[in-house]
């Protein structure tokens, strides 16, 4: 009898430890957080290259004055699609992918709380972007009104219009489901003894981000639905001729749009807050104040939206309110940057690729922060608004900001995912060429904007020629540099075997499981380990 019972127990254990299913079914039907994380990350990389190719069309056309390659209408389609793909297809899914992979492992949970919904929230994305990409082949072409979709211009879109709206709806659905999953997982599935304020910063920033997503994605869905009914069902939400207000769309859009900006940067703050302490061999400075600063930024993000609209003709009191509120964001953002510097101070730093990307993040995101502060000053913003100065600003916070953080995270956790060390020399080459070219691309844009070049134009007056040429060279170089990253990924399993801890001094539960992380981790909560592994 006893041997039968032991066999049954073995069978049960085997059941628990079963690996992934075979074939394509593994990916289509998976409910495993690691598989879904991988899917998100691969999808985001593909979108990064698609959006990047569009950026290169834009930069090639702008390399010299005069029209060389594309017509103005196609140029506008490229700027619009580049933005939509990079925001909703590359940056956001990359962070959701990192969240899927890492949050359960960082809080000692066996998986995400809602695994089937997790599968669904990923598989909506290829459908959404399939719809969006199909518009390139439609009569009238892809949407060309900018990713901000301002009416009345957006209502001049051709057959692509309903596809644009529905793909935005789907992206929103995917984001909301992902956000719900992350909140439920973090609030319910932490290991015993992991109090909220003991959570790693990446988990914290994602918790805040997920609330932002739930708050604002429905607002975007509402705004685009009103566009849809204005176009097809005779409503006049945004049409002055029918008693509507085109400016109301801008208010609603930016009520979504500004928190969206922080949705794309808060997880990056989290990533950097994991990496800098690891390679400084010192705990994160002011963990709790970092949490409060991130929460403060999230709150302020809801009351600053109209700083995107200083030229639409708001009342003076409104403009002043939004100017002051926007300037206030500099305070918690400053706290974050000072805390990172204080973390490095008197540490013992080494400079592996993830650390290099994180350091560049702190430098270059701060430059984006400075131009952000300048943009907050309403009278000056009237000059900067809709010029290349703004293009420089948001690319500084998004490319060497968000995207560098994503790259840093990929290098940081790659050995944990694959079980092997990546090619460090190739990683460093990727870092240096990306950093040089990203600055060559975006720094001259500050000068272009100040000198008077508006954004979203396919051709420009000849005094802008030199800096545009520089920016285009930089963009091509940056695009090619990303192929080094693909090389690193393709050779990721050719390096030395990674240890469980991978780095010399990492902290956190994810480093207590083997490398590569088994298909199922923490089937029992890691109670005893929390105390010694958490940051406090």
């Amino acid at each position: 009898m006893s041997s039968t019972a032991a066999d049954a127990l073995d069978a049960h254990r085997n059941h628990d430890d079963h690996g992934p299913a075979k074939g394509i079914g593994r990916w289509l039907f998976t409910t495993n957080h690691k598989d879904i994380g991988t899917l998100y990350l691969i999808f985001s990389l593909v979108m990064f290259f698609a959006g990047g190719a569009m950026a290169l069309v834009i930069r090639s056309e702008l390399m010299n004055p005069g029209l060389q390659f594309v017509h103005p209408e196609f140029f506008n389609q490229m700027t619009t699609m580049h933005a939509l793909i990079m925001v909703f297809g590359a940056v956001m899914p990359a962070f959701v992918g990192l969240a899927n992979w890492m949050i359960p492992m960082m809080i000692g949970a066996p998986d995400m709380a809602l695994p089937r919904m997790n599968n669904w929230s990923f598989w909506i994305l290829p459908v959404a972007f399939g719809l969006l990409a199909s518009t390139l082949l439609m009569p009238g072409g892809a949407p060309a009104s900018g990713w901000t979709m301002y009416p009345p211009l957006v209502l001049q879109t051709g057959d692509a219009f309903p596809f644009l709206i529905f793909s935005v709806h789907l992206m929103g659905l995917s984001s909301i489901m992902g956000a719900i999953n992350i909140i439920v997982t973090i609030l319910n599935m932490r290991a015993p003894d992991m109090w909220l304020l003991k959570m790693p910063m990446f988990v914290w920033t994602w918790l805040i981000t997920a609330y932002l997503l739930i708050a604002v994605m429905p607002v975007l869905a509402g705004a685009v639905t009103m566009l849809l009914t204005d176009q097809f069902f005779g409503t006049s939400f945004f049409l002055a001729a029918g008693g509507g207000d085109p400016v109301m769309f801008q208010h609603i859009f930016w009520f979504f749009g500004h928190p969206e900006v922080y949705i794309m940067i808060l997880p990056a703050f989290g990533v950097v807050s994991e990496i800098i302490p690891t390679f400084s061999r010192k705990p994160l400075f002011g963990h709790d104040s970092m949490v409060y600063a991130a929460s403060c930024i999230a709150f302020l993000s809801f009351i600053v939206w109209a700083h995107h609209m200083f030229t639409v003709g708001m009342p003076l009191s409104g403009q002043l309110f939004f100017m002051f509120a926007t300037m206030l964001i500099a305070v918690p953002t400053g706290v974050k940057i000072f805390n990172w510097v204080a973390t490095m101070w008197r540490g013992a730093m080494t400079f592996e690729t993830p650390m290099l990307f994180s350091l560049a993040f702190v430098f270059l995101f701060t430059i984006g922060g400075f131009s952000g502060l300048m943009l907050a000053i309403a009278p000056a913003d009237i000059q900067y608004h809709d010029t290349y100065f703004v293009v420089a600003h948001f690319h500084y916070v998004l490319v060497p900001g968000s995207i560098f953080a994503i790259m840093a995270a990929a290098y940081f956790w790659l050995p944990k995912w694959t079980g092997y060390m990546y090619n460090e020399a190739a990683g460093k080459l990727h870092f240096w060429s990306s950093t040089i070219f990203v600055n060559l691309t975006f720094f001259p844009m500050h000068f272009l904007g100040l000198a008077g070049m508006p954004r979203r134009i396919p051709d420009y007056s000849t005094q802008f020629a030199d800096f545009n040429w520089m920016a285009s060279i930089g963009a091509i170089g940056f695009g090619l540099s990303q192929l080094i990253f693909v090389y690193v990924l393709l050779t990721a399993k050719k390096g030395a075997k990674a240890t469980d801890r991978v780095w010399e001094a990492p902290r956190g539960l994810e480093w207590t499981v083997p490398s590569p992380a088994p298909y199922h981790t923490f089937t029992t909560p890691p109670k005893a380990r929390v105390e010694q592994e958490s940051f406090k």
Partner: protein
Amino acid sequence: MIRKLALSLLGVLPASTTKADWALNMPKGITELSAETYDLHMMVFWWCIAIGVVVFGVMIISLFKHRKSAGAKPATFSHSTTAEVIWTAIPCVILLLMAVPATETMIRLEDSRDPDVSIVVTAYQWKWHYKYQDEGVEFFSSLARPSLEARTKGSGVDPFAVDNYLLDVDRPLVVPKGKKIRILLTSNDVNHAWWVPELAIKRDAIPGIINEAWFRPEETGTFRGQCAELCGKDHGYMPIVVEVVEPDAYQAWVDTRNDDGAQVAQLEN
């Protein structure tokens, strides 16, 4: 290219065609408020430089001194309430120093009372219409012929050979020097924005809404700008040219325009 850049930096490259000077910074402009805007811009810029020197300075020192290869041993401190209070309070004070002058300028920018000349600007895809409210002068202003011919793909015209490529119009807006000029902006189709950097005015032209802005030009000359809100395929091809002239010349211009207008009216009758 590099040679051209170096020469332009030295300011010795002779301009072959008429075009604006190569610029790094925002223009100071020709109104009191454009100069104030420029000063605000520079003030915040220098604050950013100062903060950058401190933050990046500390970081760079740390990068050299506190590296493992230099034998650094990691400290273990993880917070300091004093430090955190200081670096929360100091930025608040700096922000206050920026906010006061910015607010003063903002209040003046919005005060468009008692104008000397009022001009209704109506935006179309893709040109501007100007109507002088009291002078009875109105006309369309669109991209000048030479730029128009050069701008199409495969036109075979070198943009460098065109005077003020994409920044020239057939009929400029003419305004008198030293007078308070109010523009009332609206649009006939989609959103546009009327922007002339030297006047420090950028204001959206939105269908169904009338926006106001004002300026008092202190210098005569020709000042160029562009539409600054994406308005469709020819968004890059609807420039703005403002000619500031002495009040006498302005009056003479209004009179000839009125004669022209009268002649046109007669012909139409």
